[in-house]
């Protein structure tokens, strides 16, 4: 990212080289050992307390959304699926409220397409996906297109700031 682009982004304006090294370098590979922050700090030329304090600050200013292990939801035994609906524009807000009322709906986005509502279902069991989709269909009167992943090629995003 260029300096000009960086300075136009509030969350990045106050970051120094160490912050950027943490954001760029710690997107995976945080060590599992007794004193992992000290181990990371040794590579960056600072002590472990400084690394932990920087991460705490980056979380507080919103440059990071989380820090810790990223779990693979399906491997934990639950169900997970992307679902789409084609919602008539006049009914959109009603349907959004009905869909969002289901605790199994983890996130829900409006998108600019005939398939205009896209949400992720997360259920305790794999069978819960079909059951919940059926309940959403009955509540809304609209078809739910369930699009579970058949194969995963890549998940993750490498950001350079």
């Amino acid at each position, binding site marked *: 990212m260029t300096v000009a682009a960086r300075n136009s982004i*509030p969350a990045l304006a106050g970051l120094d080289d160490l912050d950027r090294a943490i*954001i760029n370098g710690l997107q995976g590979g945080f060590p599992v050992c007794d004193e992992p922050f000290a181990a990371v700090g040794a590579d960056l030329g600072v002590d472990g307390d400084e690394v932990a304090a920087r*991460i705490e600050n980056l979380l507080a200013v919103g440059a990071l959304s*989380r820090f810790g292990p990223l779990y*693979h939801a399906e491997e*934990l035994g639950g169900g997970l699926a992307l679902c789409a609906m084609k919602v008539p524009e006049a009914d959109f807000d009603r349907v959004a409220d009905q869909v969002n009322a289901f605790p199994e709906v983890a996130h829900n*986005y409006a998108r600019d397409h005939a398939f205009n509502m896209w949400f992720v279902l997360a259920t305790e069991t794999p069978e819960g996906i079909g059951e919940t989709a059926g309940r959403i269909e009955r509540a809304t009167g609209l078809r739910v297109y369930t699009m579970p992943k058949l194969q995963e090629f890549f998940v993750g995003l490498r950001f350079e700031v």
Partner: protein
Amino acid sequence: MALSLDATDRRIVLATQKGLPLCARPYHAVAEDLGLDPAEVQARIRRMLETGVIRRIGVVPNHYALGFRGNGMSVWDVPDDRIEELGRRVGDLDFVSHCYHRPRFLPEWPYNLFAMVHGRDRDEVRAKVAQVAEVIGDADRGHDVLFSTRILKKTGLRLVA
């Protein structure tokens, strides 16, 4: 369940899914909260990394705060017998955060390859989608990009352990 997680693993998942503590010995802190031996907590976390239950441990940048505000879900109709090769190559592009094979719903939804593309704005996303199109080449039987227009719900994925 694909991988055998026992009750202790599940307690560790529940204790860490929101993040690791920002203290000098974070795995010791988790162990103390759960009444476990710190070495055992580390051994179990290492095992979950090896088996893929944990994708990785580290920081997750808030891409929106970092200026990546044009996120487009690119969707592609490619021949099923080439999806594995193409999915891997598209997933290797550094601006693609998620790349999946998902089911079609013919005739309304012909797309079987999904690649989430990130950029600073929609124009940058469109330019990157053009790069994806180059990778897919003559296997591209049609594609579209769905931009999100509104977040209707965002609770974060609560893992069930």
